[in-house]
């Protein structure tokens, strides 16, 4: 049999259909208006330099847990991914399980923040947020949920301040940065990070965008837009697509010194696995983490391969370590319908069992 049987009339029909959808979609695009991000009501409760700590409004109909949960997002991209739209919100799901949710927004560093180090982020900003929440609630320790790089930060923090963390949840968190399937890691091995940071000061978000788009360039910069045309006649889907598009390209610059340390220590020298992790002048020993740990990874994660996250097993000092595999990707773990049904309830239940 001949392998391509595209009849001319069918091809013509497809072209006509594409054009029609593009034409109709134009109206929806024009009417899309401003793209709002973050849907759940929240209050800014604490500031430190460019950092803002938010506390989300709790639904009155749900029984509240006593120990609050602090969500620590990555420095890369923006934390509104966790609350991107009404029916796709990790935050909303967590509130629904009775958690009292706080979230750190690191802000947009500029050149004045170039000299911020990992020590400033972990022992400065993050510790300041934890202290604020502890004081506010009259507690000695709280729950922490770290996401991606924020998960790595949370591991460092919990190892350095084990007395302040009641339960630790990590999502799509890299621990072993040199697994063979880690493309990002492969790409940075030959990069002179000192030269890059000395040259640029802060590392521009555009450079990170380019790196992430380069992971799947044909899908992410080509095919995605062809597929998008199929959604154009639905205003809600257009809005959701544009919201995600905004998030993808909303990349804060990275404070130069922190970037230098993070890439050299972790991506190039695999500090957790080699036992060389340090924050400031303090060694980071994951065995100091003795609280319960829930480690969630995504099975189709192209940014943080599952093996990178699963390496945490046995590395902490916790006797209550749980792993949860999500059948999806790095982004789907927050925004997919399946994640709303599986991931957030699982986190909530796990925390409630240990409250």
């Amino acid at each position, binding site marked *: *049999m001949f392998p391509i049987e595209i009849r001319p009339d069918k091809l013509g029909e*497809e072209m006509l259909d594409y054009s029609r959808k*593009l034409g109709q979609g*134009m109206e929806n695009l024009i009417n899309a208006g401003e793209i709002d991000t973050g849907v759940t009501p929240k209050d800014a409760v604490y500031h430190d330099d460019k950092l803002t700590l*938010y506390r989300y409004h709790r639904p009155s109909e749900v029984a509240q847990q006593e120990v609050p949960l602090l969500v620590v997002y990555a420095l890369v991209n923006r934390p509104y991914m966790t*609350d991107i739209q009404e029916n796709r919100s990790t935050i909303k799901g967590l509130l629904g399980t009775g958690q009292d949710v706080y979230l750190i927004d690191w802000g947009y560093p500029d050149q004045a923040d170039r000299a911020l180090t990992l020590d400033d982020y972990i022992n400065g900003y993050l510790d300041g947020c934890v202290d604020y929440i502890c004081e506010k609630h009259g507690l000695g320790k709280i729950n922490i949920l770290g996401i991606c790089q924020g998960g790595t930060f949370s591991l460092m923090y919990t190892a350095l301040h084990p007395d302040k963390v009641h339960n630790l949840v990590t999502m799509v968190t890299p621990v072993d940065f040199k697994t063979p399937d880690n493309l990002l890691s*492969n790409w940075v091995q*030959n*990069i002179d990070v000192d030269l890059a940071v000395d040259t640029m000061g802060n590392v521009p978000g555009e450079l990170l965008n380019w790196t992430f788009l380069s992971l799947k360039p044909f899908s992410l910069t080509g095919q995605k837009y*062809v597929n998008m045309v199929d959604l154009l006649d639905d205003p809600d889907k257009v809005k959701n697509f544009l919201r995600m598009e905004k998030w993808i390209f909303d990349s804060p610059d990275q404070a130069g010194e922190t970037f230098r340390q993070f890439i050299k220590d972790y991506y190039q020298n695999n500090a957790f696995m080699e036992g060389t992790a340090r924050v400031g002048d303090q060694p980071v020993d994951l065995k100091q983490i003795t609280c319960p740990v829930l480690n969630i990874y995504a099975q189709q994660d192209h940014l943080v391969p599952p093996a990178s996250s699963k390496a945490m097993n046995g590395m902490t000092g916790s006797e209550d370590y749980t792993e949860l595999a999500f059948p999806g990707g790095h982004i789907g773990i927050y925004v997919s319908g399946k994640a709303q049904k599986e991931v957030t309830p699982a986190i909530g239940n796990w925390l409630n069992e240990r409250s």
Partner: protein
Amino acid sequence: MANDTLFNDDWLKLQQRYWENLTDMSRKAMGLEAPRQNPWEAAMDQWWKAVSPAASDPSKQFMDRLMEQGKAYFATVERFTRGLTDGGTGWDALNKTFDDMQRAFTEAMSNGFGTNPFAMGSTGAADDAMRRVLGFWEMPLDNWQRMMSSLSPMMPGDMLRNMPHDQVKESFDRMLSAPGLGYTREEQAQYQDLMRRAMDYQRAYQEYMGFFAKLGGKSVERLRELVQSRADEDKPIESARELYDSWVACCETAYADEVSTPEYARIHGHLVNAQMALKKRMSVMVDETLGAMNMPTASEVRTLQDRMQETRRENKHLRRELDSIKRQIAERPATASSAPPATAGEPKKKAAARKKTAAKAGPSA
């Protein structure tokens, strides 16, 4: 080289090509280039010209992307279906299409990458649809250029990328190895270093483009295998979208295989490092100019940033220590005779002064 003087024919050719590239860039920037189009593309463009004034800038940019990818989508399909209706037998036409694609990538590689191998108009043997298909492979390179343009306002469009390199390397190396003389010796050395770094970046970029041209050929091979397997399984590709998606999948798979290799890590590292080295040299030279005008330089500002951050860090650390001491004092059992009245009643909680003000903003979502 036959001619070993510094300013020989090669040098003149270099100048000529460089100005041609600059002129080309200017033409593109002014929208003077009129691409050859198929009727569907022409109709789409006509429609877009009519309706786009009503769209906001973000919507326009977004629609531009949709239009551009739509063109690549149908060009891919057109390339495969046209041959089938040209009168030849199906397999002959199909194999010819694969061969043409393979040849276009090979030609792009053998052109020596004096120009972008995927750029529209650079593949002599290719037709419009073929250029669109190859243009699809330009996306990773285009991403790099866009990113570099945003980082290097002094080098719009990554302007060095098309400068010929191999032909003049020897002359350039000799010229750049000549020691500087006289009062401006140091300045001459800086410019020589700048040129050396620019040439190294060119070399890195051309190697990067070469890598993608090779990858393109491998993607065509994968598509050929996939199409053959569909024939073997009696499961023909029946729609334009299916064909396009198959092509994307083959490109993506070939790409994923190659970019996970140490070879790609080396090429990628060279590209980024060479660009940074060039940018750094430019930055140093700009600093010197600013310094001569008694203006603050980037280097000076960074020194101040470092010192200020160090001071802030120490300040925060001291504040924490002070808070800790206050807490310890407050927690000590009060002894009537020695405990000062002022501290005896202090609450156990940490001093609020350590924290900055809590925002009183209302709901912000």
